[in-house]
């Protein structure tokens, strides 16, 4: 008889279910066979300055980021990379299948988060790393093994839930 007084509650339930469904994002984690293995080789730096930076990064935790100026998601993750770089994280940029001039202009315009930029115009090195496409980001430990891989743009949640804990764990024992 008094069933109608339950209508508001049912409506709320339906709404909550709907909103919850709306929030579910596709999980984009892809397994990588590279995890735990030694990091593959990187393209040869173009000058001695870059080579020095690359050498200094050996034995340190660092990120290797594959990107291109034509890649839209790379632009989306760019502010996160800038913030990471500002906090002192070493990021090695590998410019994937791109024109050198376009890449330089892109970095000029948006800022350069990379300690060093290496070029992979043919995508040959990307094959060794198992890159599906850009952007992809690899976390390399001090022992030069691949610790973690992020496919697609780096975002807030990834930084907080995946990267930050791993970086802290790496820094922890050293100090």
């Amino acid at each position: 008889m008094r069933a109608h007084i339950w209508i508001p509650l049912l409506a709320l339930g339906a709404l909550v279910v709907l909103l919850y469904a709306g929030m579910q994002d596709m999980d984009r984690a892809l397994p990588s066979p590279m995890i735990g293995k030694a990091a593959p080789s990187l393209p040869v730096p173009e000058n001695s300055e870059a080579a020095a930076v690359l050498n200094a990064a050996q034995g340190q935790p660092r990120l290797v980021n594959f990107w291109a100026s034509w890649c839209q998601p790379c632009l989306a993750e760019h502010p996160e990379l800038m913030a990471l770089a500002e906090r002192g994280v070493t990021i090695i940029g590998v410019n994937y299948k791109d024109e050198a001039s376009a890449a330089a202009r892109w970095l000029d315009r948006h800022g350069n988060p990379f300690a060093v930029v290496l070029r992979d115009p043919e995508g040959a090195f990307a094959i060794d790393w198992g890159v599906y496409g850009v952007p992809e980001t690899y976390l390399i430990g001090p022992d030069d093994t691949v610790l973690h891989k992020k496919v697609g743009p780096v975002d807030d949640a990834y930084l907080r839930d995946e990267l930050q804990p791993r970086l802290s764990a790496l820094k922890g024992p050293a100090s």
Partner: protein
Amino acid sequence: MLPALGDMALAGATCVCVLQILFAVQAARAPERYPAAPALLNAMVSSHLLLIFVAYCAMSILFVQDAFEVVFVAQNSHVELPLAYKLSAVWGGHEGSLLLWMLMLAGWTWCVGRFSNNLPTSTRAIVLGVLGFVAIGFLTFTLWTSNPFDLQFPVPESGRDLNPLLQDPGMVIHPPLLYMGYVGFAVAFAFAVAALIEGRLDSTWARWTRPWTTSAWAFLTAGIALGSWWAYHELGWGGWWFWDPVENASFMPWLVGTALIHSLAVTDKRGVFKSWTVLLAIVAFGLSLLGTFLVRSGVLVSVHAFASDPERGLYILAFLTVVVGGALALYAWRASQLKPETRVAIISRESALLLNNVFLVVLAAVVFIGTLYPLVVDSLGLGSMSVGPPYFEALFIPLGLPLVLLVGFSATLAWKRSKTGPVLRAAALPAAIAVVAGIALWAGIYAARGAMALVGIVLGLWAIFAALRDLWLRARSGRGVGSIPSSLWGMSLGHLGLGMFVIAVTVVSSFDVERDVRLATGEVADVEGYQFRFEGTRPVEGPNYIAERATVTVLEDGAPITTLYPEKRRYRVQQDIMTQSAVSYNPMRDLYVSLGEPMGSDAWSLRLQYKPMMRLVWLGTALMMLGGFIAALDRRYWRATRSASATASGATAQQVS
């Protein structure tokens, strides 16, 4: 130091809240055993407010000091940012806006504690307990998912700057007012829950709730109007309402809140519609929470949305479920125990107000469906789509105009049962004036174009003249203007403002003219009898931007009437390009010029707009807001409860709502 202080203050506030709830539960169960309960609860509420205030001040000082080690400061400020915007940048981002939200909730709670001495101890305890529960929800949300005091190392040299769109005086006060409204509905909600728990849904409860709800509604009105004002001036292209999901998110609680303040009047005066009123109070606050959820969850994307994060969305959703779900379950349980109500005559003020409620709630449903339907379709995987503004317009005209017609009858309809004759006789004069003046305005100034425009103008004028008649009738029957109670002043002002708003919206949407032109230096474009002469551009430099400023002379019949300086700005830090429009206004029209882009040689593209009666849109909403505040001040609400039971029966003596 300061960040730690802020953290501690927030943690402390959480502890105080827990105590407040526990104590409120005790005091509500056995009020006679805790004679000191009111004083103790007040002390907790005060210390809660103090702690939140400390956290808020700490955040403000961090902004002034350019403390970029705080992530939130670094993301929303910059050394070059002017001081006023540094202070307002506190609520320019998600984390800080939560601080503001909590400060307002603490402020409202404090006011309830301070000004509710006329309430029974148990009711007061429940109200403060519920408010404490809401506060805890937001405190834990802040501390867990979005702490504004989080630090980062190493410290960046400079911040990312406040979004240039938010660097505008309108945007500085828009969010605080909006939050005042949202949070104010929490008070109405708390009163509703208290009434349900105590099983005491009566006119006394309605009278306690009314001033709080009305002032919350007035704040919300002001907040929405300012947001629209901001969009009009700052987005640069002359639009003032976009039916954007986030705008809708604030508009839904407003519509339901409007229904609530009218329904409360009936419950107060006649003791009917009780369960409906209490349901509206719950829904109004539920929609406020939903608005918060939509802005922060990333479910809907819009210009206003904060950087979103699914975890935050999930938390708010869970909170919404617990708070509103709990209240609705309580409602379902209690409402079934209510006695059937006395019947309502068809021709009476009650029934007119019920009809008003039906229309308002249907309008809220229209907005709700239009806002959430794309989400349903998307989550079912049926493709992406959006519901265009014409949908809302197509529905608001036929459903909104009857409401305006109804408004004019509000005060002459008697409570309980009204005779048709006197009501119609009282309506004759204002209706006649409205029709004559409306036709004169429509045919005289706007060349008799568009039949719908005439309907809108006449109905708006009808609301205005009917409101003036109400004041006049009351002044004549009582002892002059001084004898008019503030509730009638408030109601009449609100309805007058609504009438003005309806006319203005009708006119501006029917008769505005927009022209995109290409003008070289010295060239003239004509819009609705105004000539715009482009005099060229020159570079100028602002505190944190560089700009190209154009000079446009406006002439009417060959005589210059004003000079406008629209700008194209580039903000240095974020490198955003912004169109800064220039507006010349008087009550009858706005002339709105925005600078497009350089078109080679010395020519630019410009958008020239003639927007008739644009100012009256803001003036109308300002009057509505003012009406709300004045009505909330009515002495009747603040009188001690001693006479409460007596007035319930003698309510009809005072024929004013």
